[in-house]
């Protein structure tokens, strides 16, 4: 092997790197390496002049490999590999040494930081010595998409993708699409009816020729990679044929089972056979297997007996469906932080203390009380209602550290709705401060305070307890410096938004990252807010972070645009950094076959063979092999060994 001619380009990243690392010294040290023919340092290597200088230096100095010591390869590996291509050398001979995230940002001591940066850079210089020129692998794209979650985010994303002519599979866990937004009564800041806005979109989803709707279904397994995913979904049996069901409601009249209705946040009860809402899509009843007396016509076949349409079939079984898709949008939404976590506020045990979603159902014309605001305990109209903001939010010591973003606005809306329903009632709001950034939002809050005569008290509530049939609220008003004691008929808690249970589950199934609060992690907080860390999987809605409806719809549209852009390509190129077997060394022990998480290795005539279409280059096989017979291209065991040597300065 003739000696390499490597160019090392050291970036200052403004002061991001240069403040903690002596970049000149790094460049000087690298120049001393045997294979390094050229070094350069520059303040912003990723800027246009910086990139041009890389291209020029490659051409001028006849470089055959490049090391850029800068930020994470997640950010600029592609940038500099493209420059290598422009300069006429193979792009896989260009590697990044990360001296920002892995060095300057995490250290203070400049001397030690510089020493570490030199070690990192040297190890990558040694690595490129053995890099092979490789060509990207072209793979075909499956022109279909999957949207997981049928709330407003999922609905919007599915419609946008389908309207571009791409077939979409929309998977929803519940019996109906609509999600949280369908549970809301009116929406801020315009007070337009949530269901009126959403249900036309739901009908459009149902009727769209390009959308395949799978309700009452759960994603169980994901294989493949960007452009060619295989998703296994479980379609749970509803025991009712939606094509035959006439929605006559005779079955619920005879069903002997009564359980709390989760769609009404347990404010009402439902039968074992039920329809979540009148507007449900698909418009059909569902028989809840978990509470039914056993789907046994001898024990109880009352619903089947009365069904004239013969829509009920106790013999339906769960069905596993595998869908081939090229891209996935995850829109699995939020739950509210549990009241049981708020011990000082009753811990969910005081009947007239509700959460925000329950109050929405009380206000909703289609809700538990047909739009009359009534107390759950005695079904009377509450004459004074206390709303408490930031319950569970902004409390890093005990609960969620983050701001749930929408509570200021929906509490203002609740107060207005309450005053519209009960004009002689009194509304109090306890707040820490009002965050009303958004178009028309501040004006809306002002209207709540002034036109709707709501008393805003700045302070926290320390305790809630039952007192003479009312709920006693002990709080403080920090503006007047007084303790406040209110005997409220009803208390509404603006509980923090947390990632839904489904979000937690789907993150495990799809193996996508979550942030410290459990929300789905975006690939980059500024520049890739709708991409997950896994290529081909996109995020939309409150599963990613707390957000209101307009933001959710905007993000869903953005995710759809990304999906359409991805799927409009004829082929995708995959990095060729995949496993390669050294047949002379392979003894056919099969350990790599068992270690491969992608089922990409099989034994053929006593030797391991890699399926290049399936291999993801994770290196599990290489780590398992006792004879170094299987290696990942350009990350071979020899390269890793030499990198370790460089770091240990042997």
């Amino acid at each position: 092997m003739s000696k390499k001619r490597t160019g090392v380009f050291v970036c200052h990243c403004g002061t991001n790197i240069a403040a903690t690392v002596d970049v000149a010294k790094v460049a000087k040290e690298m120049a001393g390496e045997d294979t390094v023919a050229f070094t350069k340092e520059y303040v912003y290597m990723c800027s246009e002049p910086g990139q041009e200088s890389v291209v020029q230096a490659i051409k001028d100095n006849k470089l055959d490999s490049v090391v850029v010591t800068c930020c994470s390869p997640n950010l600029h590996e592609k940038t500099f590999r493209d420059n290598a291509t422009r300069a006429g050398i193979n792009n896989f001979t260009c590697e990044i040494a990360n001296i920002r995230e892995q060095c300057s940002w995490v250290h203070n001591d400049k001397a030690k930081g510089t020493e570490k940066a030199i070690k990192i850079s040297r190890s990558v210089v040694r690595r490129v010595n053995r890099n092979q020129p490789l060509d990207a692998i072209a793979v075909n794209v499956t022109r279909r998409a999957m949207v997981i979650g049928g709330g407003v985010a999922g609905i919007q994303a599915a419609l946008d993708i389908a309207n571009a002519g791409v077939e979409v599979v929309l998977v929803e866990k519940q019996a109906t699409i609509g999600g949280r937004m369908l549970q809301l009564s009116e929406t801020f800041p315009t007070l337009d009816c949530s269901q009126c806005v959403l249900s036309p979109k739901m009908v459009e989803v149902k009727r769209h020729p390009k959308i395949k709707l799978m309700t009452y279904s759960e994603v169980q397994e994901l294989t493949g990679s960007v452009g060619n995913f295989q998703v296994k979904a479980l379609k749970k049996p509803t025991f009712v044929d939606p094509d035959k069901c006439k929605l006559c409601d005779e079955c619920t009249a005879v069903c002997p089972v009564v359980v709390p209705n989760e769609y009404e946040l347990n404010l009402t009860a439902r039968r074992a056979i039920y329809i979540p809402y009148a507007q449900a899509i698909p418009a059909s009843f569902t028989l809840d297997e978990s509470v039914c007396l056993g789907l046994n016509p001898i024990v109880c076949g009352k619903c089947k007996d009365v069904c004239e349409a013969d829509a009920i079939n106790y013999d339906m079984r769960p069905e596993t469906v595998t869908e081939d898709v090229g891209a996935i949008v995850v829109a699995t939404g939020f739950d509210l932080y549990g009241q049981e976590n708020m011990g000082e506020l009753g811990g969910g045990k005081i009947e007239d203390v509700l959460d925000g979603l329950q109050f929405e159902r009380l206000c909703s014309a289609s809700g538990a009380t047909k739009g009359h605001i009534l107390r759950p305990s005695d079904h009377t109209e509450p004459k004074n209602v206390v709303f408490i903001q930031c319950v569970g939010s902004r409390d890093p010591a005990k609960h969620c550290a983050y701001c749930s973003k929408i509570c200021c606005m929906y509490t203002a809306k609740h107060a207005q709705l309450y005053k519209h329903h009960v004009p002689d009632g009194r509304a109090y709001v306890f707040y820490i401060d009002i965050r009303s950034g958004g178009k028309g939002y501040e004006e809306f809050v002002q209207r709540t305070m002034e036109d709707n005569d709501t008393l805003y008290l700045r302070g926290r509530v320390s305790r809630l307890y039952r007192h003479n049939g009312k709920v006693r609220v002990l709080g403080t008003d920090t503006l007047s410096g007084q303790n406040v004691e209110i005997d409220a008929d009803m208390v509404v808690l603006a509980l923090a938004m947390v990632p839904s249970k489904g979000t937690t589950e789907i993150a495990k199934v799809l193996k996508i990252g979550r942030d410290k609060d459990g929300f789905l992690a975006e690939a980059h907080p500024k520049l890739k807010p709708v991409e997950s860390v896994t290529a081909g999987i996109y995020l939309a809605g409150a599963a990613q972070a707390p957000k209101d409806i307009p933001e959710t719809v905007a993000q869903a549209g953005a995710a759809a645009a990304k999906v359409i852009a991805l799927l409009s390509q004829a082929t995708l190129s995959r990095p060729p950094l995949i496993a390669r077997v050294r047949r002379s060394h392979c003894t056919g022990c099969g350990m790599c076959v068992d270690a491969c998480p992608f089922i990409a290795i099989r034994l053929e005539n006593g030797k391991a063979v890699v399926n290049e279409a399936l291999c993801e280059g994770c290196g599990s096989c290489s780590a398992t092999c006792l004879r170094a017979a299987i290696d990942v291209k350009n990350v071979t065991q020899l390269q890793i060994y030499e990198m370790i040597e460089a770091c240990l300065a042997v």
Partner: protein
Amino acid sequence: MFFNDLKQTRGKIYISNDWCKGCGFCVQFCPKGVLDTSPEYNAKGYHPPYVKNPDACHDCMFCQMICPEFSIYVIKEEATNKGETNK
């Protein structure tokens, strides 16, 4: 109290211990797991069932139907607006 005033139909279970011959059908087939086998012996020397979980009974009367010895029966405890019609 639910806003739509639905109440679960409940049944009260009566067992004629001495008629039972301990086949265990009622315990095995109760869809709500209301019954269990008693450690006591009856006059015939069998273990009759006992009501372990009275609040879970939905008044489906399957135990009454399946008992070969007519030794168990259910009487509806609480009428509801709908859903109480027995087969």
